[in-house]
């Protein structure tokens, strides 16, 4: 199986401070891969650099294309899409306009079917399609951000902390939909602090600490790993409370 996204020995620095050091990862077709790790481990930085928002040193290829000379707009055109941590919606425009702009690079006929698909995945968005994006609730904004990204018919969707600040019931909804994307032929690279939920839907996982991957493997193995359980899943060895 050839990798859809392949990242090899990537370093990312903010000035002189290296936030990501020598990281390699790959995502195959129809695969859900998650990167878990504590706040500040460098997960968001890594996703942003793969998208081209931040410069990186190292090699990234996507769908057989070297990403280095491409800027964000061209990476979008190759089928790579990022739902960023802050969602970056067009707040003063309505839901439908946001979604239509998600298909900016797509032919009009294809965009119409994409729109139907997104409305089927997120019926809530259809109800609110004339509402301004900035007035939506947090969960609806996350759905809109994902819907907008899906409108571009991506091959790989990179999700940055989709559950951040959302009510548990909405988080469950969003994770269910992420799981469904696989059947639509979309691969997912998911960055999450909610490790438990992420490991449940992912095929494989990487554990990130201080800018490096310390562990990787099938999601079930990672979930069963004692160190991971103690650090990220909230299970306890000696009966003391984490919180």
């Amino acid at each position: 199986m050839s990798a859809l996204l392949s990242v090899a020995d990537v370093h990312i620095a903010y000035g002189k401070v290296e936030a990501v050091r020598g990281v390699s990862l790959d995502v195959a077709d129809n695969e859900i891969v998650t990167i878990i790790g504590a706040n500040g481990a460098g997960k968001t930085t890594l996703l942003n650099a793969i998208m081209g928002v931040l410069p990186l040193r190292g090699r990234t290829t996507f769908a057989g294309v070297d990403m280095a000379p491409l800027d964000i707009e061209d990476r979008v055109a190759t089928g790579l899409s990022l739902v960023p941590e802050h969602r970056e919606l067009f707040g003063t425009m309505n839901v439908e306009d946001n979604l239509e702009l998600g298909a900016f690079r797509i032919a009009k006929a294809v965009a119409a079917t994409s729109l139907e698909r997104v409305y089927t995945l997120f019926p809530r968005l259809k109800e609110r399609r004339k509402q301004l994006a900035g007035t939506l609730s947090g969960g609806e904004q996350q759905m809109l951000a994902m819907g907008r990204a899906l409108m571009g018919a991506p091959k790989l969707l990179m999700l940055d902390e989709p559950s951040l600040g959302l009510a548990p019931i909405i988080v469950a909804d969003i994770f269910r939909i992420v799981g469904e994307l696989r059947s639509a032929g979309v691969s997912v690279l998911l960055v999450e602090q909610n490790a438990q939920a992420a490991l449940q839907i992912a095929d494989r996982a990487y554990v990130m600490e201080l800018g490096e991957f310390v562990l990787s493997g099938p999601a079930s193995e990672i979930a069963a790993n004692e160190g991971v359980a103690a650090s990220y899943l909230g299970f306890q060895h000696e009966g003391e409370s984490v919180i």
Partner: protein
Amino acid sequence: MNTTIMLFLLQDGITNGAIYALLGLALVLVFAVTRVILIPQGEFVTYGALSYAMLATGQVPGTVRLAVAMGLVAFALDLFFARKALHVRLVMRSVALNIVFPVALLGLVYALVGPNTPIAVNIALALLIVAAIGLFLYRIAFQPIAHTSVLVLLIASVGCHLALQGLGLVFFGAEGLRAPALSSAAVTAGPLRFTGQSLAVYGLTIGFIVGLWLFFGYTKTGKALRATAVNRLGARLVGIRTTLSGQIAFLLASVIGAISGILIVPITTLYYDTGFLIGLKGFIAAIIGGLVSYPLTAVAAIVVGIVEAFSSFYASNFKEVIVFTLILPVLVLRSLAAPQVEEEKD
């Protein structure tokens, strides 16, 4: 004061205000999309007006040669910035836009110029010249520094204004120019006489406002421009080229500026540096609109025009002082009402 004088002043004020409204809208548009405060807007006015005036007398304006020169620089910049990933399509596109277009325009001007060229052709040529200059101005002066702060962009903008104004002196000389009216028709309503020229001003202003509203509300490109203004990163993430958005904004602004110039040059004599003051009045309207609101800007521009007309009647020495003082209470109110916002980084 009698009613007739008041009506005259109102009419005069609204005609000028309509022009300021066009310029103010262009300023808001450019600022929203690119964060550039477009000081050279006034030069687009003068270039449009005086290029048209020169064409009307059968001369070739120097602005068309400037367009060719700027196109060459823009082409060189395109090649330089794309040097690591040059491909044929990119080079061809750059050649077509930066070399072929202005050179063809130069050829067209030389072929068509003459004392008997129809007014419509002269207007079209003047518009194309200024459109090219506006487009290349963004490519040369602003696109390479598009990510910097508003202050840096403002300083670049002042630099462009000074350079273009100096070049204006070279192209048009220190003497003022005037052009033939667009139409000699006139309508009389009571004591007021509406010339074809002033009717054209109203018509075009309303037409532009409606056109912009349709463009931003209903077309894909218009929505993409709005999206760029609302959230630059979000726009890039859906594949909208923010550089293209910037070019379209500058193109629209330069065409709006040139049209304003062509509309007023039959009414008043314009000098190479007149545009700056006219642009500044559009700027006042744009500031009153907070550099974001199109309707508020349009209304403020009409108010600026009317205040100007009345103050030039009552205290003509203080005309400009009174007009520019309008901005003070607005700035005070705005700074009190709105909390200090940190500039968005992107």
